[in-house]
């Protein structure tokens, strides 16, 4: 006793992702956040006597698409089951879910870890199920029930306990959010409860060469990425303290549930009924199975796209972008795809990246839209990048041109001319101007040739004079070169 103690935290996640179908999973009610309570309900999702569910095709295909992106094996035969438990937000008192034949299993997700590396978290299964409604906790001894959310399609993802810190869990959550948004299968909005995380946590504690496993705790009510990370970190410390104090270890079935109290930043033990986990699953007799034909599966798979993490790695490797810029560009699928198309159209990657990240995304954010909705095309951006590259416009001018492209929808070269932002790079034409400026400014020429303190300032003055005479349209690089050649040094 009392020897050195080491510990490792072991976390598996159960994740519910709301799929962004227009209508619910088994009825035609609209999936809508913030509608008047109990207004988006019908006999089917109210679980009224005699009603029957009919599967939403889009929900099924979104689930398969997401499962494919999570590298899961897709079941060619899948069916639905009822999971029984009584709760006021579950009007049928059973949930239609999948039990022994989930639509997908055995996948993984790569999450970014420090230093540009990734870690693979295995996924046990991902299945489709319906959401419950909401119990609104009011005052005065009563709770209120709103069933608008009832029947919303959810993808439930269960990971292996491969996660070893709160930070990793958060990284997984962020990555998953990017993936589902990329695929367009979920809005992934944490505030609207589109993604909900329930970690199962315990520790392997090593003391005097012996390993001990602490009892598993499931945390509920984690409503943000930050809460997910904090909750796991809190629980890690709490379990360690508890172990050191009581020495209690895991036995089968002694899992407990704790709720995250965001105000107090701690987990609190939740009481559960003794029969809480006897769900009495059995095959849902009101639905028929789905047999996924090869062709259909391929058709869904063709909607897959390059996922954010591999894209990010590629941008760094292939284009030499910074990790930060690559992250910004891959934040949303539309941005990344716009970037890719601009580069394919001949835009130099770094120039395109600068145009998009420094100007394009700024405008898009101000307007609350995507980069593709601003009215300029990938080809236009590629052209603009090429103009900067060729010295036809300055970097500063290019931002101005991009903004004008948003306003007018015109081609960058046309705008450069209209706004007189084209740079003169013709050495012959510029030489005449330089000659004239040198003739008109003898003192400055002397200062330059004298060298010393005043030389640099005088050179700048001369450059400025040339720019003024050309109304800013001279390429400063070319002018500097001519000046240097004529005055020596430089």
């Amino acid at each position, binding site marked *: 006793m009392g020897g050195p103690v080491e510990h490792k935290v072991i976390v598996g996640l159960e994740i519910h992702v709301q799929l962004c179908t227009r209508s619910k999973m088994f009825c035609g009610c609209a999936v809508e956040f913030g509608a008047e309570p109990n207004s988006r309900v019908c*006999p089917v999702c*109210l*679980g*009224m*006597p*005699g*009603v*029957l*569910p*009919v*599967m939403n095709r889009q929900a099924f295909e979104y689930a398969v698409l997401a499962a494919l992106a999570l590298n899961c094996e897709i079941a060619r035969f899948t069916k639905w089951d*009822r999971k*029984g438990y*009584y709760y*006021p937000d579950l*009007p*049928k*008192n*059973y949930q239609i879910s999948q039990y022994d034949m989930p639509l997908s299993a055995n996948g993984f997700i790569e999450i970014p870890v420090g230093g540009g590396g990734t870690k693979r978290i295995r996924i046990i299964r991902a299945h489709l199920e319906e959401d419950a409604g909401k119990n609104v906790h009011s005052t005065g001894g009563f*709770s209120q*029930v709103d*069933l608008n959310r009832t029947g919303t399609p959810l993808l439930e993802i269960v990971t292996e306990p491969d996660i070893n810190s709160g930070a990793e869990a958060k990284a997984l959550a962020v990555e998953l959010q990017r993936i589902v948004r990329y695929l367009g299968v979920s809005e992934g909005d944490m505030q609207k409860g589109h993604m909900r995380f329930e970690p199962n946590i315990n520790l392997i504690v090593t003391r005097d060469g012996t390993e001990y496993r602490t009892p598993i705790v499931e945390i509920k009510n984690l409503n943000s990425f930050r809460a997910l990370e904090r909750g796991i970190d809190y629980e890690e410390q709490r379990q360690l303290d508890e172990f050191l104090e009581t020495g209690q270890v895991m036995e089968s079935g002694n899992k407990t549930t704790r709720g995250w109290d965001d105000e107090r930043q701690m987990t609190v033990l939740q009481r559960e009924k003794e029969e809480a*986990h*006897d769900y*009495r*699953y*059995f095959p849902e*007799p*009101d*639905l*028929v199975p789905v047999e996924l034909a090869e062709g259909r599966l391929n058709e869904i798979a063709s909607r897959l796209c390059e996922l954010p993490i591999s894209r990010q790695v590629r941008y760094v490797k292939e284009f030499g972008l910074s990790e930060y810029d690559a992250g910004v560009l891959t934040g949303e699928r539309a941005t990344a795809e716009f970037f890719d198309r601009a580069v394919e159209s001949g835009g130099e990657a770094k120039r395109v990246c600068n145009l998009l990240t420094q100007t394009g995304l700024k405008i898009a954010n101000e307007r609350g839209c995507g980069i593709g909705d601003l009215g300029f095309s990938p080809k236009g951006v590629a052209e603009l990048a090429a103009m900067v590259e060729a010295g036809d416009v300055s970097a500063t001018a290019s931002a101005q041109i991009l903004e004008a492209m948003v306003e007018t929808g015109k081609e960058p070269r046309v705008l450069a001319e209209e706004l007189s932002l084209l740079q003169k790079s013709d050495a012959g034409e510029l030489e005449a101007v330089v000659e004239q400026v040198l003739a008109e400014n003898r003192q400055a020429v002397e200062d330059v040739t004298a060298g010393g303190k005043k030389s640099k300032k005088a050179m700048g003055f001369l450059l400025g004079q040339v720019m003024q005479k050309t109304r800013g349209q001279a390429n400063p690089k070319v002018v500097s070169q001519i000046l240097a050649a004529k005055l020596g040094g430089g």
Partner: protein
Amino acid sequence: MEQLSAKALRDRIAAGETSSVEATEAILSRIEDVDPALGAYISTHREMAMERAADVDRRVKAGEPVGELAGVPVAVKDNMCTTFGATTCASAILKDFHSPYNATVVEKLLAADAVIVGKTNMDEFAMGSSTENSALRRTVNPWDGARVPGGSSGGSAAAVASRLCYAALGSDTGGSIRQPASFCGVVGLKPTYGRVSRFGLVAYGSSLDQIGPITRSVADAALMMNVIAGRDAADSTSVDETIAPVCDYLEKLAIPVEGLKIGVVSEFNAGADEPVREALGEAIGVYEGLGAEVVEIGMPRLDYAIAAYYVIATAEASSNLARYDGVHYGHRSERARDYVKVYTKSRAEALGKEVKRRIMLGTYALSSGYYDAYYLKALKVRNLIRGDFTEAFRKCDCIMMPVAPTTAFGIGEKVDDPLTMYLSDIYTIAANLAGVPAISIPCGFDGNRLPIGLQIISPAFTEDRLLAIARMFERQTDWHKAEPTVSGGH
């Protein structure tokens, strides 16, 4: 006029030879006279019925087209949802439940211009074989007021037998159409599972439930099937036209089946009472007289049908009836202090004993530790029983057997012994487990002048042939024309 068949009445109304108002008024006043003693109806809807009747008459006069059941007074079992009146399932828990939607079959009846005069009594949630489990009314057998009408569609059968409507709908999970039809001396058809939409039928055993007609003749059963059969987009388990097309059952009726082969399981049938066996033998003799061949078939697993049924049906029921919890609709206990008590007390107060018993049995069969031994085993036995049918139908066109081992038994005789009551379903249950269609037609009387039914079972989706076979017998006999005396009246 009550002596007319539904078909004949419809044709006379459509031809303007008689009026629906007259026919409906006659039925309604007969109900007022007879039903206080008979108890067939839970609710009648005079005003609505008379309005609809008048509308049909008006349209006939105006030369507008009218439907297949134009102006014909019909009844529906009170487990089919209607927007008019309450839909009670003969349960205290739904005593005041008003459905916001119509069952698909109700919509179809209305679309065919039928006049729905009322909703009929039944065993609570269709659980029972005598209609004694109704929480709202007692129905007696029209042939003997001291006996049960059978169940669970006892109200529909009694109403048809007593000329309190021209045709009715019942539902059959383990014999609930055929057995009361047999006890009351009328025709009752349980269609193939998937032939008639279950949308709006309050579920008991979802993989077994099927709606079907109870009528005075085989032709009227065919007419009703013409109206209610077919795929419904709201019921995933209703079968597509591409798999099993619906046909004109009335038209096919006239064609006798050539070279009919009748399968008989002698050993199994030996379990029935003497008069029942005699009537069965005579009925088969009638077919032999028409040139049919009798084939002895072995169906070794039929003996296990009751055991499998009472596990599967109750398991599904325990889940289907979980929704009656006093939260969203239906009875709520006044004494509930917390939300769990809302469930336990509301259900305890407003569900009947038989319903509780079946919920308990089904819950037990699905609960952890017992699932494999009971539920899963029952599903395997079900497969074997279906195999028996598949085998049998290789050797014969249809199977004939009793509907019930006895004729109508005395009120109160079996209420306290549920197992004995369950065992009386021995002949009807197998067709539900295998999903095949089966019909009961009147084929004689016992010494107490109580009707006996002949059951004919045929392969899935062969209702046209089944009805034609039944019609062959009806043409040769007068059993279906016999009328109960007890219902008296005019």
